[in-house]
């Protein structure tokens, strides 16, 4: 606003013609912009619920009993019918096959191979060993409390 008035005062000839007529449009545009804001917020709130955050998953993972069968069926789906009988030794060198298998297993079992261990998954056997390990989400104190303690040891965790 100060800049506009300075320009207007300094050079009167052209800028009055330039800024005179559209200036009213600018001001009227500002006045018009304030009014529809009230109506727009109501519409925006309705569009956003598509991006609702899904509930947090827990990190506990217990390997299911039919893990071998599930992995074998995934391998057969991804690699096709040309899977030898020693399906555990199939190599995962190819990026497409490795991604397909690991993504499928992760979606199936709800537990993905972390980035630090991806390079160790060379064969299907490694993937099987990874998924056979259960993972608990408990803290060390909860594990201690749950385990068998001698009668003269008490743990109070009041935090």
């Amino acid at each position, binding site marked *: 606003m100060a800049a506009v008035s300075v320009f207007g005062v300094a050079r009167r000839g052209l800028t009055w013609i330039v800024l005179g007529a559209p200036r009213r449009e600018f*001001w009227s545009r500002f006045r018009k912009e304030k009014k529809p804001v009230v109506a727009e917020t109501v519409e925006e709130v309705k569009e956003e619920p598509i991006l609702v*955050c899904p509930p*947090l998953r827990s*990190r506990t993972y217990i390997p299911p009993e039919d893990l071998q069968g599930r992995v074998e069926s995934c391998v057969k789906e991804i690699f096709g019918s040309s899977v030898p009988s020693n399906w555990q030794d199939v190599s995962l060198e190819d*990026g497409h096959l490795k991604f*397909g298998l690991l*993504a499928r297993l*992760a979606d199936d079992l709800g537990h993905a191979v972390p*980035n*630090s261990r991806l390079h160790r998954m060379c064969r299907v056997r490694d993937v099987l060993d990874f998924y056979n390990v259960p993972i608990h989400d408990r803290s060390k104190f909860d594990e201690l409390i749950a385990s068998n303690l001698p009668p003269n040891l008490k743990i109070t965790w009041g935090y």
Partner: protein
Amino acid sequence: MLQLVRAGVRAWLRPTGCRGLNALTEEAVPQAAKPESVASAGPQAPVLRRCELPVPAPRRPVQAWVESLRGYEQERVGLAELHPEVFSTAPRLDILHQVATWQKNFKRISYAKTKTRAEVRGGGRKPWPQKGSGRSRHGSIRSPIWRGGGIAHGPRGPTSYYYMLPMKVRVQGLKVALTVKLAQDDLHIVDSLELPTSDPQYLTELARYRRWGDSVLLVDLAHDDMPQNIVAAASGLKTFNLIPAVGLNVYSMLKHQTLVLTLQTVAFLEEKLLWHDSRYTPLYPFRLPYRDFP
């Protein structure tokens, strides 16, 4: 009206920017925009990234999931191969410490200054004769043992703590920091930093859902090409910081819990960091123009 004037002035006075770094990123962008991977448009086609630079024979590339920020559930969009010399080098914690302390200290100028006995006002005359008065002998009233006297060994003027570690040590520090982040599952690779909304709340909820941690460092390739949504979202948050690839440093990587790189950034970093392994010693400083500097 003022916004239009400001936009006009900004467009007219667009700065050329820092010549060296911008020139490097501008050269890198058209090279990195080569479609190395399958088109990431469809949900079924995975984004696979191969290492462009040669991997020495016994070592094999390390891998990481390529994620997407467009949806909460899009955590496995593809698979990226990372060069082992950059992302799986020896975990030299001593180099990390050296580089982090260097970053903290080389900019430091301490302005503390105290006056010595010569600078304190007064104290040119012997206060009483040497013998006869019964008091202890003194030469001036501003000596350090006097109250109000000068300081004997105090800080002297602005002191600079500037020093430079060798370039290869700083480069190795970056490589070790990236290795450590990947090894501790704090590194995430993203196909691009495009968000569906510019709401900061979306970014925080995404990080919470994927269990990234409290602080996230987002790294894009160049300052000009950052999507508007991520710029708006990150500017509204204190613990989510967005930097260009040339701004990556060990201190920031250690300060933030998670590091998020784009595929283009990974290519840029690999090229820049690996060049130092097999370069000649400079005949003149690298800040002067070279024909084959990456």
